[in-house]
């Protein structure tokens, strides 16, 4: 793929990344030399596995019997009626084993790790969902699992820490830097540099050095492929719009990717607006409030100061609280194929409660951001407009955060 100037559109939106791991100018392989041979090996192994029917069959079997796929595409009648516009469908990836979309990707990477003879799996986690998914699949295959988690997040997400420990994983609190997700990722990279021979780094989102952004996207694309088939079965046509929340952006990339070349489909990513996207930088909206830079192996939009130092950002949702975003999203943003908007903490909290009461589904705080935007958008659309929102995680993990935000006291 060649770099596409602003305004000009490529023949296909699905052909990236190029040989250098670039989506336009985004992506790449900005890693320490020690890791270069490892990511080149991984790229070769993934390219091989991708074309082998046995690999696909093994994934399919686990998806069906272990994860519970396909996840339903559910028409949400009371949300639709309440918002009074577009017909709202929810892609129910919160019904997956472990309660979020994260396991789709983890299964793929762990199968690759096994092919490569790696026996020690490391992962980073923010809210703990990717950590729990990784610990789960490692338990399933009898692999040693070490999860790096910012010390601040360990404190905030105790139930998930205990879950990972129950599953046999070692959770390492990271005190370096500011002790949150980006520092956990730094620490995982440091571990990998020190343990190159037996260790596989299972990255949880569509970021990191090439081939991770493309590989994680491919594993998550099951979400969009199922959605396409299910919508065809339900309504006999393509949806009119797709909405998903974005932290690193893996659930969104998974839903969007199979629809990128369906140009009638409007695609919207919702970033975490925190306390509002402005100069205070108390948000996690990399595209709407950041600028391009290089971190964690790729060029992408980042929250950073004038001197290129990385800023922490803020979101009520620990899973969206990351100063970067997957490089493919940066490219889709620059060429204008996907619209990127934001929703604040407050709007997400309102949507969280609305969905719980109207549909009997307690959403995670992450997709509550997507839902907050749906609540604004749907009323402006006609009744025959088909809108799909990715319900990428369930909200059990968030009840303490939400209770605190609402001024309620509950005892764990």
């Amino acid at each position, binding site marked *: 793929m060649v770099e596409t100037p602003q305004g000009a559109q490529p023949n296909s939106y699905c052909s990236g990344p190029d040989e*250098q791991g670039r989506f336009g100018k985004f992506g*790449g*392989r*900005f*890693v*320490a*030399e*020690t*890791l*270069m*041979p*490892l990511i080149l090996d991984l790229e070769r192994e993934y390219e091989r596995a991708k074309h082998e029917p046995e690999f696909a069959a093994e994934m399919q079997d686990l998806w069906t019997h272990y994860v519970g796929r396909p996840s339903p595409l559910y028409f949400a009648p009371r949300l639709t009626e309440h918002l009074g516009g577009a017909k709202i469908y929810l892609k129910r990836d919160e019904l997956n084993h472990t309660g979020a979309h994260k396991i789709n990707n983890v299964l793929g990477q762990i199968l690759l790790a096994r092919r490569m003879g790696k026996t020690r799996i490391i992962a980073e986690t923010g809210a703990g969902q990717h950590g729990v998914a990784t610990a789960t699949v490692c338990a399933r295959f009898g692999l040693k699992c070490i999860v790096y988690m910012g010390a601040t997040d360990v404190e905030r997400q105790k139930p998930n820490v205990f879950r990972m420990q129950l599953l046999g994983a070692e959770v390492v609190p990271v005190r*370096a*830097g500011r002790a949150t997700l*980006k*520092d956990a990722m*730094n620490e995982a*990279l*440091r571990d990998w*540099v*020190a*343990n*190159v*021979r037996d260790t596989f780094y299972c990255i949880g989102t569509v970021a990191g050095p090439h081939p991770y952004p493309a590989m994680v996207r491919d594993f998550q694309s099951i979400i969009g492929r199922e959605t396409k088939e299910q919508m065809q079965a339900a309504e006999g046509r393509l949806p009119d719009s797709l909405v998903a929340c974005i932290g690193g952006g893996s659930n969104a990339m998974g839903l969007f990717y199979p629809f990128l070349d369906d140009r009638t489909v409007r695609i919207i990513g919702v970033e975490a607006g925190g306390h509002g996207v402005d100069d205070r930088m108390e948000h996690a909206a990399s595209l709407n409030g950041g600028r391009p*830079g*290089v*971190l*964690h*192996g790729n*060029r992408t939009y*980042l929250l*950073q100061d*004038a*001197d*290129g*130092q*990385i800023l922490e950002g803020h979101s009520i949702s620990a899973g969206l609280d990351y100063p970067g975003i997957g490089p493919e999203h940066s490219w889709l943003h620059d060429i204008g194929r996907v619209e990127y908007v934001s929703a604040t903490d407050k709007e997400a909290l309102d949507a969280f409660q609305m969905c719980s009461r109207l549909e009997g589904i307690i959403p995670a705080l992450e997709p509550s951001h997507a839902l907050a935007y749906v609540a604004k958008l749907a009323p402006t659309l006609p009744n025959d407009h088909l809108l799909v929102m990715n319900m990428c995680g369930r909200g059990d993990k968030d009840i303490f955060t939400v209770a605190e935000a609402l001024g309620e006291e509950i005892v764990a």
Partner: protein
Amino acid sequence: MSSRLSATFDRLKSEGRKAFIAYIMASDPSPEASFEALRGLPQAGVDVIELGLPFTDPMADGPAIQAAGQRALAAGATTASTLEMARRFRAENDATPIVLMGYFNPIYSYGVDKFVADAAEAGIDGLIIVDIPPEEDPELGPAARAAGLDLIRLATPTSDAKRLPKILEGASGFLYYVSITGITGSAEADAAQVGPAVARIKAATDLPVCVGFGVKTPESAAEISKIADGVVVGSAIVAMLGEGRPVDDVLDFVKRLADGAHGTSPA
């Protein structure tokens, strides 16, 4: 190759000596103390200076250098102030090469073309940018070379015979051999393993090969200097600055390291 780096390695070679390379983080623990340490390094026996460019997310560095970067940033360090520190040094020392070591984002943010021009003008001789592997050379290499800066490449224990030519292509100044698989200041370099690796690299290039990442003591510096063209020490020096030790004490330690590397330690 920049004239200062090549002149330094040529001189050392003619004297039959090995290079001692010391790393400090710019503005750590404060701009004043850092500059005092910097200007004292040549007198303490340092042949080449590595000056750290502070970054919030140093993914290849251990706790000592991570903390140094945080102290520097807290003390107000910027990319511009780091270049200014080099400029002040250069005003009083025109011989000792300075290599800037850090990560790409602050440079990208500053603007690559402006950065290499300003760095060359400030008297910087070379760059070691940890997250620019050969695959990403077009991001920085052509601009750096055009400005007369050496882009120093890293080779590691994972650099096999297939990988090495890729690393050496476009390398200049010297080759930095990372003696361990790991982050700065973690494991101890093992001369028994480093020796054959350095020999293998030297068979493939005429560049001086300097060894760092796992060297912490004068004894270790002495041992490594027997098998390489130079020895780099960073974390052990930076840790002393971080403990708030007087600059003179730090420079005394640097002198012992340099004596070790130069084979002139008192018996």
